[in-house]
């Protein structure tokens, strides 16, 4: 286990923490999990009303285009002083570069160990700038203190609401080519 509460090291991510030792870097050999995505994952963690989070700025975005962020989450499964486990949740939101609202996701119940059952969820946002900052935060509306496990975060372009100029050029040139072909055929007849 790695204490990340002092800001890292966590390549690529900016950490905001309210509670030591969260977030925590975990590996399968520590007796928790396992994650099916490599050998390591992180716990964002919660204490009282402080929800720790990590952020990453994503570049090369196109304004008006939708992007899908997919990630895997798992729950802390055993009982603690607050009650039974299986309450872990994660909130995905955009800190900048998008007006898309935050969305909260619930992790599936664990079976034997904490963070041993993972589900993949997708958060879609529309960029309004060429770069945007993604925030992934521990969520727990009933504040029971069950840490959410996070792994396998990725992004891909989703449905475009405003076509890229390159795509428009491609479409126009295809139509032009098709039109010329048809015209040539009709002249030949």
């Amino acid at each position, binding site marked *: 286990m*790695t204490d990340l509460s002092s800001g*890292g*090291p*966590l*390549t*690529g*991510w900016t950490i905001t923490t309210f509670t030591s030792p969260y977030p925590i*870097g*975990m*590996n399968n050999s520590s007796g928790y999990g396992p994650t099916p*995505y*490599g*050998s*390591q*994952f*992180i716990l964002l963690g919660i204490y009282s009303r402080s929800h720790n989070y990590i952020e*990453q700025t*994503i*570049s*090369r*975005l*196109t304004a008006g285009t939708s*992007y899908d*962020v997919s*990630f895997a989450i798992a729950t802390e499964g055993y009982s603690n002083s607050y009650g039974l486990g299986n309450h872990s949740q994660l909130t995905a939101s955009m800190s900048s570069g998008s007006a898309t609202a935050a969305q909260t996701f619930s992790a599936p119940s664990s079976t034997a160990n904490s963070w041993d059952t993972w589900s993949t969820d997708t958060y879609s946002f529309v960029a309004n700038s060429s770069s945007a900052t*993604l925030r992934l935060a521990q969520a727990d509306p009933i504040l029971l203190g069950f840490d959410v496990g*996070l*792994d*396998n*975060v*990725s*992004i*891909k*372009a989703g449905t475009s609401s405003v076509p*890229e100029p*390159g*795509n428009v050029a*491609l479409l126009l*040139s*295809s139509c032009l*080519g098709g039109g010329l*072909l048809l015209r*040539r055929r009709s002249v030949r007849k």
Partner: protein
Amino acid sequence: MNCANKNSYRLVVRLNTSQENTMNRNSLRITALALLVLGTAMPTANAQSITNGGFETDL
């Protein structure tokens, strides 16, 4: 112009038309290939990525 010359002329015209069609077809093929390459390369050039999304480093 005698008959033999007329036939030669027609043959030449046919050959030219045939050559023109081949050139047009080749132009279309080249254009289609260029569009395919452009369409394939464009999403790659615009690809976004998450750094260390698997948290496999540092921990």
